[in-house]
């Protein structure tokens, strides 16, 4: 059976008689990718679930706002990224009010039963976490999701040139961090 294109999926999502079916296809197609994208920003297992759920619910309720000027999946990534950034900012604000409640990433990973990485994976996560937020997201999208700069530009609303520079700086910083440790 011929796979439904994202353009066809968009049409299904706009029609109330096919919206539910289209949404199920959308979830099957993009849930895992978006999950890991959010997880790399949020890091926490439970918080990631909340953000991903909120993302898809937002997508379902606001699909009529998607004009189709970009690809459907870059729009999904954009929503997921914004949800993750907002969530993290709100959480950090709460944590900033109480230093005792801010364990740091290293301790967080130690306590995380869903982290089973080796030492180099731990160092890599710490290195990435040291980056400024936008640079971190650029790095994750390029390094892990292997997203082309042109698509990343639609997700982050940033020029291709700026994204390339951001990624190159991020990669060099991480390299230096890993070699220093």
């Amino acid at each position, binding site marked *: 059976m011929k796979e439904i294109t994202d353009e066809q999926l968009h049409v299904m999502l706009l029609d109330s008689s096919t919206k539910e079916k289209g949404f199920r296809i959308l979830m099957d197609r993009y849930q895992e990718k978006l999950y890991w994208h959010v997880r790399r920003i949020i890091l926490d297992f439970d918080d990631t679930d909340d953000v991903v759920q909120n993302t898809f619910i937002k997508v379902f309720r606001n699909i009529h706002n998607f004009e189709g000027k970009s690809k459907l999946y870059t729009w999904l990534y954009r929503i997921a990224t914004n949800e993750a950034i907002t969530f993290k900012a709100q959480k950090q604000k709460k944590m900033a009010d109480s230093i005792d409640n801010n364990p740091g990433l290293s301790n967080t990973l130690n306590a995380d039963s869903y982290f089973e*990485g080796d030492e180099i994976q731990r160092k890599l996560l710490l290195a990435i976490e040291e980056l400024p937020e936008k640079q971190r997201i650029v790095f994750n999208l390029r390094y892990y999701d292997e997203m082309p700069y042109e698509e990343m530009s639609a997700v982050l609303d940033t020029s291709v040139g700026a994204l390339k520079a951001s990624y190159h700086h991020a990669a060099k910083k991480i390299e230096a961090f890993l070699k220093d440790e």
Partner: protein
Amino acid sequence: MKRKDEIKAELEEIAPFLASLKDKKEGFKLPNHHLVQMQNQIFDQLNFQAPNLTARKKINIWDYAWFKPAVAAVFVGIVATSIFFWNNNSSMKTTKMADMSNADMDSYIADNIDDFDVDLFIKNNPDLLDETFKDLNAEDIHQYLHESIDDLDIDDIENL
């Protein structure tokens, strides 16, 4: 593959040690079926009407009122066809359906269910299939038939 190569080459140029770690994931894991369970929660929040998904889409085909008689009709077809060949086989000419014990008939149907042409059945009975059943391929239907044969009441065949 071309994009992958480009990204790898780009990274090797700016950060060769990091490039050597490229194939490593972050080290996070997920419990089995976690994403499916998440889907179900989302569908519940959005009040989706369709039944909840589990790890694999499961459809209890015996819930469809038309299915059991349809299966019985199919088995009658198999048995009738077999009897036709039996009747033309000199060594088994005297064998008739009425002479077969229930146990023999059960055994015969079980032995021949694999030869049943599901595709032909679906093609010739489109009105018996609803939207959900249409999503099942011949292999799925075959599997259900095979698994359900023990539940089929031989009286259903005789009463048709």
